[in-house]
């Protein structure tokens, strides 16, 4: 017993002295490149045929911000009609790749570059897509009339919704895509759905005004 006690005292003695602790390890955030075990990440975005020539026209507008600011490699695979994105060594954030992919995808859906660029700049923007048949089953003339109601004369209804809710809307035949923040998407979607279901544009306008006024008041 005495010997154990002795041992303890000896150990305590050694502990009492403030010995040099190992330094706290500093982990720097992983670079995009190093993530996933240092492998390169890809994204591939298909180009639909009707967006092929518009893509050719605005290619530089797409390429420049992606390559310069987001630091993502981008190239067009002509044979496969695809846009391919790849992380670089100096890509700061892995989410850049996804953002770029979303940006390109938004362009493919039909949005303008200046609108789609917002995806790169703002985090909380989303794209929502739905079809007219999700809202109401319409056939033939009714469908055409619904699409006409959505756009309005010269697109004015669509622009009115866009301006009021700070979103961008693309109506591609029966598919509808909305780009914007979450709440604004909801408002725009409600307006579009009511238009599909048949309410006149004036009614939608008044509702829009009320909602947007309320939204503006909040801030």
């Amino acid at each position, binding site marked *: 017993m005495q010997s154990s006690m002795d041992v303890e005292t000896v150990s305590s003695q050694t502990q009492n002295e403030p010995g040099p602790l190992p330094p706290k390890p500093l982990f720097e955030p992983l670079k995009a490149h190093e993530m996933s075990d240092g492998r390169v990440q890809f994204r591939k975005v298909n180009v639909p045929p009707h967006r092929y020539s518009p893509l050719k026209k605005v290619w530089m507008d797409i390429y420049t911000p992606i390559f310069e600011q987001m630091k993502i490699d981008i190239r067009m695979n002509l044979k496969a009609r695809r846009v391919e994105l790849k992380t670089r060594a100096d890509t700061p954030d892995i989410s850049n790749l996804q953002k770029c992919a979303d940006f390109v995808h938004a362009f493919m859906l039909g949005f303008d570059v*200046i609108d789609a*660029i*917002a995806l790169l*700049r*703002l985090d909380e*923007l989303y794209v929502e897509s739905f079809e007219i048949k999700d809202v109401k089953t319409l056939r033939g003339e009714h469908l055409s009339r619904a699409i006409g109601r959505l756009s309005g004369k010269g*697109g*004015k209804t669509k622009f009115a919704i866009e*301006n009021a809710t700070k979103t961008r809307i693309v109506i591609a035949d029966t598919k509808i895509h909305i780009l914007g923040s979450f709440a604004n998407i909801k408002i725009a979607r409600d307006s579009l759905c009511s238009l599909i279901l048949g309410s006149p544009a004036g009614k939608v306008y008044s509702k829009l005004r009320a909602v947007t006024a309320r939204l503006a008041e909040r801030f």
Partner: protein
Amino acid sequence: MATKSEASLNLDLDLLHRLKSTEPPVWLAPRAELSETARKASKIIFSYLRTYAPKSPLDQLLIEGFDAEQIWQQIDLQSQPLLSSLKREVKKFEKKPEEIGKIREVLEGEKKVVESVGKVLEGERRVLAEESDDFDEDLDDGLDDDDEEEEEEEGSEGEEEKKGKGGAEGGIEDEFLKINELQEYLEEDEAREYGLKKDSNDSRKKGGRRVLDNEEDEDEDEEDEDEEELGVFGDSDDNEEEDEHRQKLENAGYEDFFGSKRKKAPKKNLKSIEELEEDSGLDDEEDEDEAVETKKNDNLSTHEKQSEQLRAEIEKMEKANLDPKTWTMQGEVTAAQRPKNSALEVDLDFQHNVRPAPVITEEFTASLEEMIKKRIIEGQFDDVEKAASLPSKAPRELKELDENKSKKGLAEVYEEEYVQKTNPAAAPLTFSDEQKKEASMLFKKLCLKLDALSHFHFTPKPVIEDMSIQANVPALAMEEIAPVAVSDAAMLAPEEVFAGRGDVKEEAELTKAERKRRRATEATKRMTAKKARDNTLLNDNDGDYLIFS
């Protein structure tokens, strides 16, 4: 006879014993011998009973060639009336147990007892005979019973008649006065006094019978019977005679309907008197008519006529009381309970809950028009004036929906929003701000003009430092707004207006000397100018001298 009867009796008993002794299961299957035995036995029993049912149409039960149903019918034919008469007898004996003994004595054949019984029975028979009018139901029974009882009482009746005719026993009685009839009359009178209906029914029945005798109308009779029955049932059961009457009711026979001819003549006068004097609560018009006829025949006194009228009145009133009331007296009556359109004929009185519509007369319209004219002249109208709504709060800015394609991209939109949120001052003017600016400028101009007109609040035009062409307009127009006086003080200074000597004279104004002087000055000017020219010319032409003098 005795041996025969004894032998037959033994035979019968034997048959019955045989029937009785057979086991019950034997009866299940039809057997010829059993049936034969049964038939014979029933025939024997039938013959026994025949003596007690003298009115039955069958002398003996016919069994040869008849089937069970027919035999049964024959038995039924005999036994039904028999049974009812037996029941009645039993009831009678229930009430009067002493009679059983008497009946026995009768059966034993003592005439004296029969006489005494006969007297009692006389009354019964009389009543029976009287009441025998009634009866729809068991005519057969009645007939049978009547026959039975009449059989029994024939003897006594015969005695009575003998009495009546010979006047042997009474001595008092003769052709006109009969004690029995007197008794009846007295009873009826008493009954009438005390209001017993049954007596009236009795007498009425008697009378009815007599009437029938006279008229021979069966329907009447049945009516009488019905009413008498009602009367009978309505009365109290105090009197023993009541039951007898009821029994007699059930024993209606031919005599009761059509009456036996022997009693017709002597009782006729009595009957008429009775009819006259009875208090007829009768609904039988025939009877009353009869009564009326008889009255007319008798030449009533005025008092009697009056009393008759009174009676008729009373009767009418009583009848009205008994009838159900008219619908107007019935309290709450729905449309279904009263005859059609009956409410129109009656003058109804009820409260109207609504004010009656005003009657439009000429005066009414004239008064209205007067009022209208007066109001128009005064200008006092009752128009509803809209109350001005107080502005509770400032109206919200209505955001105009821009229907054009936005020139800014989405990113720029959000950028602006962000900048506005973080740094409101540095935010570029929004579309609405520019419009506001323009609007405020326009308004200021307008206010300036209006103020100038009103002259109250004068504010000078704001000094805007900018290069502008100054027109030579009267200064007052610029500085003083109100054109109080017209001044010709020009903006420009005089030397600015005209720079020159003041001797401006026209050709016409010049004097001769001045004209000469002007010409001279002009000439000298010309000379000097020419000399200057020549000099230069001469100087130029150094090479060649061409002297032209």
